[in-house]
């Protein structure tokens, strides 16, 4: 008899099965903390830069073009990182029709929704809203929309961290406008960016622990 033909202990086998699946979840989710970290940094520094335009009062003012450039560069960077890591995590997988449909609809919803929000803001101005109010409307509407998309992602892929992140984003997006301009940008930087960084740390601990599950147990 080879080692393979031995009848292993059922309890060990059940544990092995759970460890194996947890390990794969950890490996496939290994990129998640990096994505969250990049968004956390983008929010913290990006909205921080926007706040520095008028936030500190007479003491200091960051030129608007620098603030805008920093904000856009960080957001684009985080978006590119998310896309690259997302593609990497599904390498070697051939998805079925159902998953492909879900991925397609969800992915397209991001840019369709973003364009719709831009149009909605312009429509409000067209109907007489003060242009300055866009400073309140756009960040709030976009973060609200992103929060909803996170909640949807949580529902589709059963990811609790995304649910928490989505709920938190929605809460921040509806409360921050009450702080008014420019303080709202400080709220987005600290509460929004901080939220991402906390969830990033949490998911990093979780995936690291999950990946290590198997190396502690049986290997063959």
């Amino acid at each position, binding site marked *: 008899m080879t080692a*393979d033909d031995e009848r292993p202990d059922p309890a060990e086998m059940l544990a092995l099965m759970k460890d194996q699946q947890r390990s794969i979840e950890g490996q496939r989710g290994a990129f998640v903390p990096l994505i969250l970290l990049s968004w956390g940094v983008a929010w913290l520094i990006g909205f921080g830069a926007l706040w520095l335009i008028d936030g500190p009062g007479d003491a200091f003012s960051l030129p608007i073009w620098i603030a805008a450039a920093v904000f856009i560069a960080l957001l684009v960077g985080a978006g590119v990182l998310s896309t690259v890591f997302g593609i990497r995590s599904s390498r070697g*997988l051939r998805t079925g029709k159902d998953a492909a449909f879900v991925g397609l609809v969800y992915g397209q919803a991001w840019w369709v929704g973003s364009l719709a929000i831009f149009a909605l803001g312009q429509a409000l101005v067209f109907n007489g809203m003060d242009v300055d109010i866009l400073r309140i409307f756009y960040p709030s509407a976009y973060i609200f929309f992103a929060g909803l998309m996170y909640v949807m992602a949580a529902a589709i892929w059963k990811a609790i961290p995304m649910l928490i992140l989505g709920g938190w984003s929605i809460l921040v997006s509806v409360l921050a406008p009450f702080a008014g301009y420019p303080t709202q940008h400080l709220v987005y930087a600290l509460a929004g960016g901080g939220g991402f960084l906390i969830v990033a740390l949490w998911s990093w601990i979780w995936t690291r622990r999950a990946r290590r599950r198997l190396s502690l147990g049986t290997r063959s």
Partner: protein
Amino acid sequence: MTELDPVIHAAARLRITAALAMLDTDESITFPRLQELLAMTAGNLSTHLRKLEDADYVGVEKTHRGRTPITYVQLTTTGRRAFEDYTRTLRTVLGEQS
């Protein structure tokens, strides 16, 4: 039914089956990626995949992307059922509430 399926009841094959059962029913995974996720040697993985294939638990599809050959692996319906039965039996044997 308390007899544990001998095809699955071996550490390496249980790990392979458990990993493949995480995919959707119409999803498949390449051999190298599966090997990487399981941290198994190619030889070990192919040996056990063949045994699972012989039992009709695993479907192996060889195809090409350009000139590169790709091997896709997935659980068959029989294999998915066998894995569900196996885990249910395991829990029954252990007296665990599922």
